[in-house]
C-alpha cells in the first residue's frame, strides 16, 4: 500500500505522546551519561594500569636496592672482623701487647658487629616493604573482580529467568565486568600510590641514616684496606710469602710460566717491585670499597628521586638501576678481596 507524497504521514498520538518524547529524551541523556561514564572509566582504567606498572617497577628496583644495601652492611661487618684479626696479627709481628685492653676491644668489636647486622636486617625489612608494594601493584584482583562481577550478573540474569541465549545478556555481563574491573583497578592504583608514599618515607628515613653514617662506613672499608696492605707489605719484606701469584694472571696471555714459582725472589729490585704492586692493589681495594659506598648512596638517592616523581615514570629510576649495577659490581669485587 502506497501513501501519497503530499500527504504527511500521521503518526498516531498514542504512539508518540509528549510522555514518549520526554522518555526518549531521558533515555538519550541517560545513554550519553552512560557513555561518558564508560569513557571516563576506560580512561581511568588505562591510567590505573600505568600506575600499577610504575608501582611494580619501583617495587622491584626498591627490592634490589635493599638486597644490595644488606650485602653492603654484610661486607662492612666482614671488613670489621678482618680489621680486628689483621690487627692482632700486626701487633704480634710488631711485638705490641694489648692484653690490658683486650676485653674492652672484644666488647667494642661485638657492639660494632651487632650494629652492622642490625642495619643489614633493617635493609631486609625495607625489602619486605617493597615486596608488599610489589604484591599490591601486581595483584590481579581487578581481573578476578571482572570475572566475579560477570558471574554475579550471569547469576542474576539466570535468577530472573532471562533467556541465557539472549545476546544482550552477554553484552550486559561484559559491560558490568569491565566496569567492575576498571573501578577496582582505580581503587588498586589509589592504594599503590598511597603505599608508594609509605615506602618513600621509609626509604627516606633509612637513607638519612645511611648518609649520616656514610663516612664511618667508608672509614671501616679504608681501615681494612690499609691494614691488609700493611700486613701484606710486611710479609713481602720479610720474605714470608711467595709473591708470584700477584703477576700470574698477567703472564697467562703471553704463555709465560714462572721459572721457579716456589722460591722467593732473590733480586732486591723484584722484591721492591712486588711491594709496590701490593701497595697499588691496596689502593685499588680502598678505591673499590669507597666506590661501593658512593654507588650505594647513588642508588638510594636515585630511588628517592624516582619516588618523588612517582606515579610518573622518571629517568631517576633508570639512574637508580644504573647505580644498582655499579653497586653490585663493586660489592662483587670487594667479596673477592674478602676471599669469598
Amino acid at each position, binding site marked *: 500500500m502506497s501513501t501519497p507524497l503530499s500527504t504527511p504521514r500521521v503518526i498516531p498520538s498514542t504512539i508518540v505522546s509528549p510522555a514518549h518524547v520526554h522518555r526518549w529524551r531521558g533515555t538519550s541523556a541517560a545513554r550519553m551519561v552512560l557513555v561518558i561514564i564508560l569513557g571516563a572509566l576506560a580512561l581511568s582504567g588505562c591510567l590505573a594500569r600505568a600506575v600499577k606498572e610504575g608501582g611494580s617497577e619501583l617495587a622491584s628496583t626498591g627490592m634490589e636496592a635493599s638486597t644490595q644495601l644488606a650485602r653492603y652492611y654484610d661486607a662492612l661487618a666482614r671488613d670489621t672482623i678482618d680489621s680486628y684479626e689483621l690487627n692482632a696479627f700486626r701487633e704480634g709481628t710488631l711485638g705490641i701487647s694489648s692484653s690490658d685492653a683486650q676485653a674492652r676491644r672484644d666488647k667494642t668489636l661485638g657492639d660494632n658487629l651487632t650494629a652492622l647486622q642490625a642495619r643489614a636486617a633493617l635493609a631486609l625489612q625495607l625489602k619486605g616493604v617493597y615486596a608488599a608494594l610489589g604484591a599490591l601493584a601486581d595483584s590481579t584482583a581487578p581481573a578476578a573482580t571482572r570475572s566475579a562481577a560477570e558471574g554475579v550478573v550471569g547469576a542474576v540474569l539466570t535468577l530472573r529467568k532471562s533467556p541465557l541465549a539472549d545476546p544482550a545478556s552477554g553484552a550486559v555481563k561484559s559491560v558490568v565486568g569491565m566496569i567492575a574491573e576498571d573501578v577496582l583497578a582505580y581503587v588498586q592504583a589509589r592504594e599503590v600510590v598511597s603505599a608508594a608514599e609509605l615506602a618513600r618515607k621509609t626509604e627516606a628515613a633509612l637513607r638519612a641514616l645511611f648518609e649520616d653514617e656514610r663516612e664511618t662506613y667508608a672509614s671501616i672499608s679504608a*681501615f681494612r684496606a690499609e691494614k691488609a696492605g700493611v700486613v701484606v707489605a710486611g710479609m713481602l719484606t720479610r720474605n714470608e710469602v711467595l709473591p708470584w701469584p700477584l703477576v700470574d694472571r698477567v703472564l697467562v696471555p703471553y704463555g709465560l710460566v714462572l721459572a721457579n714459582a716456589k722460591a722467593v725472589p732473590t733480586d732486591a729490585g723484584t722484591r721492591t717491585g712486588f711491594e709496590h704492586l701490593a701497595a697499588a692493589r691496596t689502593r685499588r681495594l680502598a678505591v673499590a670499597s669507597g666506590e661501593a659506598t658512593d654507588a650505594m648512596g647513588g642508588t638510594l638517592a636515585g630511588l628517592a628521586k624516582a619516588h618523588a616523581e612517582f606515579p610518573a615514570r622518571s629517568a631517576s629510576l633508570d639512574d637508580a638501576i644504573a647505580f644498582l649495577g655499579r653497586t653490585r659490581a663493586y660489592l662483587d669485587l670487594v667479596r673477592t678481596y674478602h676471599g669469598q
Partner: protein
Amino acid sequence: MAKKGEIAATGPALSAEATKQTVVAALQQQHAFIDREFTGLMAIAGKDTGKVEALKRAYLVSYDQYWDAVARTFLENEPRLQDLIKMMRSTQKRIKDQLASVENVASVFQLLASLISTAASLLMLSSM
C-alpha cells in the same frame, strides 16, 4: 680575622654530625699513618725506650680511639634505628592491609556470584 696562632675559618661551620664523621675519618687516617710508618719511626727511636714505648702506646691508642669512635656513632644512632625498625614493621603491615582490602572486593564479588548461582539453581529446581 684570625689572631696569631689561631686557624682561620675557610668555610661554613660543619654540623655536629659532619664534625663527628670527620673525626672518625681523621682517627682512621691517624692510625693508618702510625701503622704504615711504624717500622721507620721505630728505627728513628732507636734504643730510646721512652720513645719506643710512646710509639707502641700511640699505635694501641689510635687503634682503640678509632673503633671506639665507630662504636659511638652507632650507639648514638641506636634510638633512630629502633624507630626505623618500628616504622618498617608498621609500613609493611599497612601495605599488606591495603592489598588485603583490594583483594577482599574480588572475593566479595566471588561470594556474591556463588550465592546467587546457588539461589538460581534452587529456584530452577523448585519450578521443575
